[in-house]
């Protein structure tokens, strides 16, 4: 894995860099076949790509920061993420996989992976980072989750239960990171800046208010 701990998927030959041309040709060929065989139209493909690209980690952070400040909303989000997202104006595409939110606390730390491919809560936080799709992360996190956490700069006490969630089927998992200490007086907008893409995957905690101020 990369030494800086933030790119643990880049050395695995997942298809970025030198194979980019091959994968781009393959994607074009598949698109042409899907259209030719009437599985979907070019318009369907472009609409779905636009939908995914219209979401980013900022969208997830906004929702999760709201859950931090509103305990009743948090309950609804954990019980039925899709309805709770709709309350904030996020209407997930009907074709999107089901979405569930898992809460991290002092007792439990959840982290998400897809060991089979690259399942990810795209419908709310957009495309996954490259390392998430890489073989290094996907194979290591299920065997040695605490080792992966350390690579991302997170050391957890053994009293915290680490739960790896492998998204292998019809559900996608968004992690609600633990609200950091010293954030009591912060606005929802400021809080959202503490919620990173890594913290919503569960490989890191939310940022501390000090690190944001210093940065």
């Amino acid at each position: 894995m990369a030494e800086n701990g933030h790119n643990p998927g880049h050395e695995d030959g997942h298809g970025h860099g030198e194979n980019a041309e091959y994968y781009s040709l393959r994607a074009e060929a598949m698109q042409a076949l899907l259209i030719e065989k009437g599985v979907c139209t070019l318009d369907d493909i472009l609409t779905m790509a636009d939908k995914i690209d219209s979401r980013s980690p900022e969208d997830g952070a906004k929702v999760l920061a709201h859950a931090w400040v509103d305990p009743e909303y948090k309950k609804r989000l954990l019980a039925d993420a899709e309805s709770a997202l709709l309350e904030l104006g996020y209407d997930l595409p009907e074709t999107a996989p089901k979405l569930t939110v898992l809460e991290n606390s002092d007792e439990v730390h959840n982290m998400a992976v897809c060991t089979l491919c690259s399942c990810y809560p795209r419908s709310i936080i957009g495309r996954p980072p490259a390392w998430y799709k890489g073989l290094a992360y996907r194979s290591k996190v299920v065997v040695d989750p605490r080792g992966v956490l350390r690579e991302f700069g997170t050391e957890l006490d053994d009293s915290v239960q680490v739960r790896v969630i492998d998204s292998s089927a019809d559900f996608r998992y968004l992690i609600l990171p633990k609200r950091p200490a010293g954030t009591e007086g912060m606005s929802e907008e400021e809080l959202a800046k503490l919620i990173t893409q890594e913290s919503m995957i569960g490989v890191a905690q939310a940022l501390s208010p000090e690190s944001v101020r210093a940065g």
Partner: protein
Amino acid sequence: MAGNAKYQPGDRVRIRVGVPPTHFRTPEYVQGKQGRIETLWGAFPNPESLAYGGDGLPAQPLYQIEFAQTDLWENYKGAATDTLLIDIYEHWLENI
């Protein structure tokens, strides 16, 4: 929807061992391992049929299953309470 589900939350099950020559979504690292049903999600189209242009029917009950990490890996390095959750379709489960 999942009225015909064979298992309920709390039940212990074993994941079937098999590598069918088709698309399947039961990773080999959980095959043969024992876990506990955490959640019954309802019934979902069978991906092994969908992947080949089928209708996915009959829909399969889908369960979220929790394993102790120490049951998955002989030399697990983390805490004894650490777990792994994964979603598995009913036809991959067997009684212990």
